[in-house]
């Protein structure tokens, strides 16, 4: 890792990155420059070491400057927080210690199509479907209204809730061709796969009306927009979500294109807080039934640099986000967020004008499980062979 020939350039930061901030800093440095081929934070956490793409040495000063700017910006406004841990299920010994990805690939249980794009085979599909089915059973007492939302979302909706400005780095814009015979025929003649991207004439594309939806619940708020609600609502939906994560994309741990089951609450503040607590309790039962090792603790969303410090601090301060982090035994001390329990206060109520009868903005909250990550955590902890999976899992698969 620290081999200097691998990372020939160094950026001394003049500060030490707090240990708990390293992941966030690394997450952002991927977006600094297209000329950046690789980087790492030094063990002393006071230096970024990096490597440029071949022939890009002229960009060294610019890249150095940007790495320093981003890393120091994130550190300067950082506040230290003790993690608040709600539930903890540690484990000393795991059935499996190896990274399951190579074996999954060998056995036809996953297939890598490209950066952040994976297919799943029968055992993994069985886990995804069983968890989703069982989660729905677990929250049956909430009597959620089932909905289905599109995977493409209007730019108007993402603008309305500030997503475009807060998470520009992870957006996926959708373009269809211009509705023009010459443009379409020209595109068809000329479009060609160039090894890592499609060569297209930009002027054959219509301006973007839609993007890929980064989460399930935005469509729910857009459905309820500009309304007065006479009663609290609990809605559930499963959908595809899309977050482009650049160099952070990594096996099933972080996909560009993933499946999420959500439960969404809309109502008065106390209602939303109370429902979140109830789902945390219900989810704990399901996760224990699946015999997973995990923690439920405070977390923040991956805002882009300019919003990062303030929004993250705000989420921390108000306990707005808790994550279920499942242990990944193949990464010592490592884990993956398989679910989250979120409070948005009245942010969406205000953004989308969802109010009470007398016009007060309602509060919202949502709970989401990333289904591919649940399946990953299960095989990482219990192995690939369904015969070795916990009885609760085997039972839920066969139901």
């Amino acid at each position, binding site marked *: 890792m620290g081999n200097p020939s691998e990372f020939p350039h160094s950026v001394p930061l003049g500060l030490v990155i707090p240990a708990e901030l390293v992941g966030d800093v690394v997450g952002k440095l991927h977006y600094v420059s297209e000329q950046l081929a690789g980087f790492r934070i030094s063990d002393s956490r006071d230096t970024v070491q990096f490597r440029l793409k071949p022939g890009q040495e002229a960009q060294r000063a610019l890249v150095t400057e940007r790495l320093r700017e981003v890393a120091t910006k994130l550190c300067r*406004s950082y*506040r*230290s*927080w003790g993690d608040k841990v709600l539930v903890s299920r540690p484990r000393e010994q795991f059935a499996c210690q190896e990274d399951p990805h190579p074996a999954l690939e060998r056995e036809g249980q996953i297939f890598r199509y490209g950066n952040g794009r994976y297919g799943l085979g029968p055992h993994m599909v069985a886990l995804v479907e069983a968890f989703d089915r069982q989660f729905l059973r677990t929250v049956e007492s909430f009597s959620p209204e089932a909905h289905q939302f599109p995977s493409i979302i209007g730019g108007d909706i993402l603008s309305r809730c500030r997503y475009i400005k807060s998470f520009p780095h992870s957006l996926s814009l959708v373009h269809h061709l211009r509705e023009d015979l010459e443009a379409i025929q020209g595109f068809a003649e000329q479009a060609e796969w160039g090894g890592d991207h499609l060569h297209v004439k930009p002027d054959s594309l219509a301006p973007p009306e839609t993007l890929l939806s980064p989460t399930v619940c935005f469509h729910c708020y857009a459905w309820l927009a500009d309304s007065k609600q006479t009663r609290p609502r609990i809605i559930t939906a499963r959908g595809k979500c899309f977050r482009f994560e650049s160099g952070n994309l990594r096996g099933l741990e972080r996909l560009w294109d993933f499946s999420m089951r959500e439960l969404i609450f809309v109502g008065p503040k106390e209602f939303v807080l109370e429902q979140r607590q109830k789902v945390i309790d219900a989810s704990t039962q399901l996760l224990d039934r699946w015999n997973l090792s995990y923690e439920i603790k405070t977390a923040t969303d991956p805002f882009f640099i300019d*919003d990062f*410090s*303030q*929004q993250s*601090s*705000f*989420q*921390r*301060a*108000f*306990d707005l986000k808790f994550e279920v982090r499942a242990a990944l035994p193949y990464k010592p001390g490592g884990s993956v967020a398989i679910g989250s329990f979120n409070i948005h*206060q*009245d*942010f969406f109520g*205000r953004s989308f004008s969802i109010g009470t009868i007398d016009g007060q903005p309602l509060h919202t909250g949502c709970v989401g499980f990333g289904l591919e990550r649940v399946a990953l955590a299960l095989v990482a902890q219990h192995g690939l062979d369904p015969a070795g999976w916990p009885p609760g899992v085997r039972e839920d698969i066969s139901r």
Partner: protein
Amino acid sequence: MSELEREQVESKVRAVIGQTFGLSPTETAGELRMGDPAAWDSMGHMQLIVGLEEACNWSCPGHQIAELVDVPTIVDAICNPSN
């Protein structure tokens, strides 16, 4: 802390709130709490905390940020930094 000092802190707090959210003097003197003015939202709240820290030479502990949603509470926190 004397009543006078407390009043001084309160007027400083109101001034920072007014500046942060671009309020008129009348608004600045009125009742103020998170959510009202509307600009006092999540982003606004953190800007306000940072502004208050600078203006009052005070450091806000993370666990307190969520409580500081109206003027009296903020003034209390600044006047009794040990809390």
